[in-house]
């Protein structure tokens, strides 16, 4: 018994492991460093996007006369102008605006879950985690629709050299413009979507643990906080994808 007491005292001093560098726990620090390394990956995507876009001609005519052509980079709002249930209506960027709102909202419900965790309010943590899971799933669903629409294409399509008409886009053909435009769309939004999906899986694990009272027994909800960091990072990446893929 006395040995245990001695150990507990020794471990609290600075050079005995009782000190937390930067006043953040090990897990939180590691999450920050992981997110930093993830930022490197997304920066590589953005660099590739910038360099490839630079190698293609920009569309120089009036925006009203814009038609799809592999000769120049397309105007994003002419490509992403569809909305579920409103076929043939020109609604530039409306659907991506909805997706952005859903993701920002999911970020807010995530902070609310973390805040409830600080107050040890189990019921509130459950409620806000559920909302976050719901909004996150809604976002992934929207992205699936967006991909589906992009792959299916428009009626007009693109005439190939052999005379046949190709609709939509895949990794080799793209009716909206240069092939690399479609490739970058699939890789960048796909990589981001994978992150959102992993986030939802983590959130579901958090929810199950919260319901089981694991964190209440542990005395803190730091695990929710760490997953929250990851979730906000995913939102942060979307802010950049949104700007560079849809707006610029």
């Amino acid at each position, binding site marked *: 018994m006395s040995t245990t007491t001695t150990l*507990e005292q020794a471990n609290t001093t600075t050079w005995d492991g009782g000190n937390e*560098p*930067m*006043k*953040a726990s090990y897990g939180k*620090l590691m999450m*920050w460093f992981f997110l*930093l390394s993830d*930022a*490197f990956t997304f*920066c590589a995507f*953005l*660099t590739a996007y*910038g*360099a490839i876009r*630079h*190698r293609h001609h920009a569309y120089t005519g009036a*925006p009203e006369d814009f038609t799809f052509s592999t000769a120049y980079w397309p*105007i994003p*709002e002419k490509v992403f102008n569809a909305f579920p249930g409103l076929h043939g209506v020109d609604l*530039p*960027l409306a659907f991506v*605006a909805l997706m*952005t*709102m859903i993701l*920002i*909202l999911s*970020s*807010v419900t*995530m*902070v*609310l879950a973390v*805040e*409830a965790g600080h*107050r*040890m*309010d189990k019921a*509130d943590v459950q409620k806000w985690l559920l909302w976050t899971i719901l909004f996150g799933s809604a976002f992934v669903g929207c992205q699936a629709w967006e991909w589906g629409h992009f792959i299916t294409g428009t009626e007009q399509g693109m005439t190939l050299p052999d005379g046949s008409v190709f609709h939509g886009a895949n990794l080799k053909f793209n009716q909206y413009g240069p092939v690399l435009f479609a490739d970058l769309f699939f890789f960048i939004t796909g990589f981001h979507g994978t992150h959102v999906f992993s986030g939802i899986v983590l959130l579901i694990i958090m929810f199950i643990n919260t319901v089981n009272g694991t964190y*209440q*027994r*542990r*005395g803190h909800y730091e695990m929710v906080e760490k997953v*929250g*960091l990851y979730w*906000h*990072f995913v*939102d*942060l990446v979307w*802010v*950049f994808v949104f*700007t560079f893929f849809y*707006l*610029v």
Partner: protein
Amino acid sequence: MAAHSHHAHDEHNVGEIPPAQTKGIWKVFFILCAITAVEFAFAFMMDAGMLRNSIFIVLTIVKAFYIVAEFMHLKHETKSLIWTIMIPLVLLVWLIIALISEGAYYGDSVFNYFK
């Protein structure tokens, strides 16, 4: 923490949950929504060009600041942690700008060398 103290902790928390402090969170939410709305206003009311792109990038960085500083709580961490995260990120932004502009120059010179 020793295992025997957990039970006491559990009982301590039952029945006295402090009220939620969510004012600041919703404020950040409205700021993010407002900036996104402004971005859409620029997207539809202004012709494409260098100036509009610069406005988009500045607004994006403002949004990123609010997400990282408030939602990810980085603003309220210790100075050393803030710099540990910020310095590599700033260098990354520099890397992107450098690679794109140098890459554009190098690409142009390689493609036009034999013309």
